[in-house]
């Protein structure tokens, strides 16, 4: 039975959107907290300078300003990702740069992966690989594989993601780790989104690699 984008959106969309929204808001709050403490620190220095009748220490001020600027840049990057993510449901079908989608999926869920203590290396293809479909569902598909793949990995593990073409010239996104990290179960939620992309998930015998293959 073929499912429509709308049916899949209704079923899985809110959960993924909510999960990403929560982690992004947490990241933005952290940026705000750092900016808040640094502006507070400037205020403290101004008050102390006023109280002691001496000019404020310009060098210290400059350091604080740099820290605030860094957080503004960080928050801007987070909000840009959020904006792209929010617009990912605008078109039910579009041409998507696969590596750009992986970068966005990783940026959105960076904190969740970092909290598991897992390092993710993403190596983009030399050329561009495009797939057609809904960006939102490609992101949710990549994320569901990442969540399943990192579920059993111990802290300190390294997960390598790379895009390539397989022996049948099909576009493929590969997730690999030195230690076994995947099981045969747990991929059901990806099923409907896989249909949308005419894709399949291929596990290797050692359970150290899972491939998302487009154009089955």
């Amino acid at each position, binding site marked *: 039975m073929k499912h429509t984008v709308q049916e899949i959106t209704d079923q899985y969309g809110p959960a993924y959107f909510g999960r990403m929204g929560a982690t992004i808001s947490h990241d933005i*709050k*952290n940026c*705000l*907290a*750092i900016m*808040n403490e*640094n502006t*507070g620190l400037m205020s403290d220095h101004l008050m102390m300078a006023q109280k002691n009748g001496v000019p404020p220490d310009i060098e210290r001020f400059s350091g604080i300003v740099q820290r605030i600027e860094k957080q503004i840049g960080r928050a801007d990057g987070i909000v840009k990702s959020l904006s792209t993510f929010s617009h990912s449901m605008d078109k039910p079908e579009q041409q998507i740069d696969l590596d750009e989608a992986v970068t966005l999926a990783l940026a959105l869920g960076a904190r969740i992966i970092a909290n598991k203590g897992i390092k993710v290396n993403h190596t983009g293809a030399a050329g561009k690989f495009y797939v057609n479909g809904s960006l939102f569902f490609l992101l949710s598909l990549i994320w569901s594989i990442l969540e399943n793949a990192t579920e059993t990995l111990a802290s300190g593990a390294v997960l390598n993601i790379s895009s390539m073409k397989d022996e049948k010239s099909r576009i493929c996104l590969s997730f690999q780790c030195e230690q076994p990290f995947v099981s045969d179960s747990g991929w059901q939620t990806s099923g409907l989104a896989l249909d949308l992309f005419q894709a399949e998930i291929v596990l290797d015998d050692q359970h150290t690699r899972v491939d998302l293959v487009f154009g089955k």
Partner: protein
Amino acid sequence: MTEKVLIIDDEQEFTQALAERMTNRGMTVSTSSSAIEGLQSVEEHTFDVVVLDLQMPEMDGIETLKILKKKNPELQVILLTGHATVEKGIEAMKLGAMDLLEKPADMTTLTEKIKKAQAKKMILVEKKTEERIRDIMETRGW
């Protein structure tokens, strides 16, 4: 008496700025950038209050809180979080956290909470000392 505070948060730029502001307010402040480092610091030094981030890599704030309270029940813990849910707040209180504040926190509010936490810790330590003295008096046949 100066408050001895430990801040545990993986956002180092946050801990540095917060520590400096607290020091400006007369507190003695140490920082740790992970739960493991923080727990080690609590083993080696005495603190009145721990200001603890809820979400950290390797070990989260709730897990850290459990260990801290098990090892040192008198130690007061104030949780700081970027995303406070009611469930997390209740869980933290049940585990013995003194308070849960949302980031970015207001310095005046945080300072007040730390002073209250220190006072609470002193009462608990005094009570424990009294109990120990009473126990000694009752069990030793002087």
